[in-house]
């Protein structure tokens, strides 16, 4: 069952066309890794999937909602689509626990007790139960990102979007975050991951999309894409990063 369908997606910022013509279909439980050079449009593509960026042209259907239509209730769609950011974007004035319980309580109107119980389960999952009452500023980068993942999971999303989740981390913190993501993938979460972690893409990805210049240049299962890239652009990119 396809859960995301993208048809001829175009996105411009003023005169600058960042996404030129993107079409793809993502299946439920699929893990899609998006790689490519800076400025290739991969983050913009991801941000179009929960409409943090307005869609200039084309059709994007997420979890049965046509989100490229202006009449869709985008808040309803976003409840089912979690997002994790490069800069974590935890709420600094709230504790770890409050960061996680806020959306379930305000959006889903879950009771405080139920939201807390779920938050502790998720903190166990990411290995940070003892940090529940800390503030984000008291955490390391890797801990912040794991809390951010728990915060997104608290809404029980059907899809998780990751926007370079490990790019702002010290190298020794990367592993903990990737482990949490691997676990999620194993549990059958549908994931779209913009990443520079080729090892993760190869190991966890069901499919890798290589983007450049606003197009998907090539997509394939990881072994094929990494071992036998078809396009010159893919070959030259991989020769630099691998």
């Amino acid at each position, binding site marked *: 069952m396809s859960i995301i369908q993208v048809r001829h997606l175009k996105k411009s910022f003023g005169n600058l066309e960042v996404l030129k013509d993107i079409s793809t279909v993502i299946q439920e439980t699929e893990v899609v890794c998006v790689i490519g050079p800076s400025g290739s449009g991969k983050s913009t593509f991801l941000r179009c999937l929960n409409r*943090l960026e307005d869609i200039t042209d084309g059709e994007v259907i997420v979890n049965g909602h046509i989100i490229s239509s202006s009449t869709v209730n985008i*808040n309803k769609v976003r409840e089912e689509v979690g*997002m994790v*950011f490069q800069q974590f974007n935890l709420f600094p*004035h709230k504790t770890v626990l409050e960061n996680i319980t806020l959306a379930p309580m305000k959006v889903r109107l879950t009771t405080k007790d139920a939201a807390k119980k779920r938050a502790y389960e998720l903190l166990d999952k990411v290995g940070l139960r003892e940090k529940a009452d800390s503030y984000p500023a008291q955490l390391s980068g890797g801990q912040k990102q794991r809390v*951010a993942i728990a915060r*997104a999971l608290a809404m029980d999303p059907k899809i998780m979007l990751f926007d370079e989740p490990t790019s702002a981390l010290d190298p020794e913190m990367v592993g903990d975050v990737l482990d949490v993501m691997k676990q999620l993938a194993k549990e059958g979460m549908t994931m779209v991951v913009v990443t520079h972690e080729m090892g993760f893409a190869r190991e966890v990805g069901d499919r890798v999309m290589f983007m450049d210049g606003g197009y998907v240049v090539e997509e394939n299962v990881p072994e094929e894409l990494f071992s036998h890239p078809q396009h010159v652009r893919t070959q030259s990119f991989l020769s630099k990063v691998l």
Partner: protein
Amino acid sequence: MDVVRNALPYLMDGLKVTLYIFIIALILGFIIGLIVALLRLAPIKPLNWIAKSYINAIRGTPFIVQLFFIYFGLNTIPWISMDKTTAGIVTVAINAGAYFAEIIRAGIQSIDSGQAEAARSLGLTSTQTMRYIVLPQAFRRMLPTFTNQSIISLKDTSLLSIIGIADLTQRGQIQQAATYESFKIWLIVGIIYFIIIYALTLLANFLERRFELR
């Protein structure tokens, strides 16, 4: 010292008037400022324009002129009838509101856009995002400038004595006229203002520490 001892109870009644006007005007001014700041940032051009015009009109004219316009000018309109105190409160509130609006706008804009994006990505509406995420952080950040403007507004209330409100300054004038002790009377009036403003500064410092951005 007799002059001061005799004048003090009378001046204290004036202080009550000053503080009464100040506190009500501060609350109203803050509400005006919050609304105007949100209008100023709303994605609707005519609303931005209204908010900007209001801010420019207040910033571009002297307080005394605003006071005279509201008390003498507006009161010539048949269905408006404001007493002195009301006109005084309205003037201070409208004046402070314009400055608060700019302080709140700057505070909101200083919050990283990633905060709102994270909140919206969780399904919160734009109103919930403003209320739970952006405004609480913005308020903490703007506390020092907010204190500054409050102190300016408190001092502005002394100008209300011109339309005959019996505030601290007006009562100082009356005491001075009755005793001809200008030095002592104005010194004690000054000290009273200073104590109140200093207390306000201490309160603000306390709040800043209490709500320190973590």
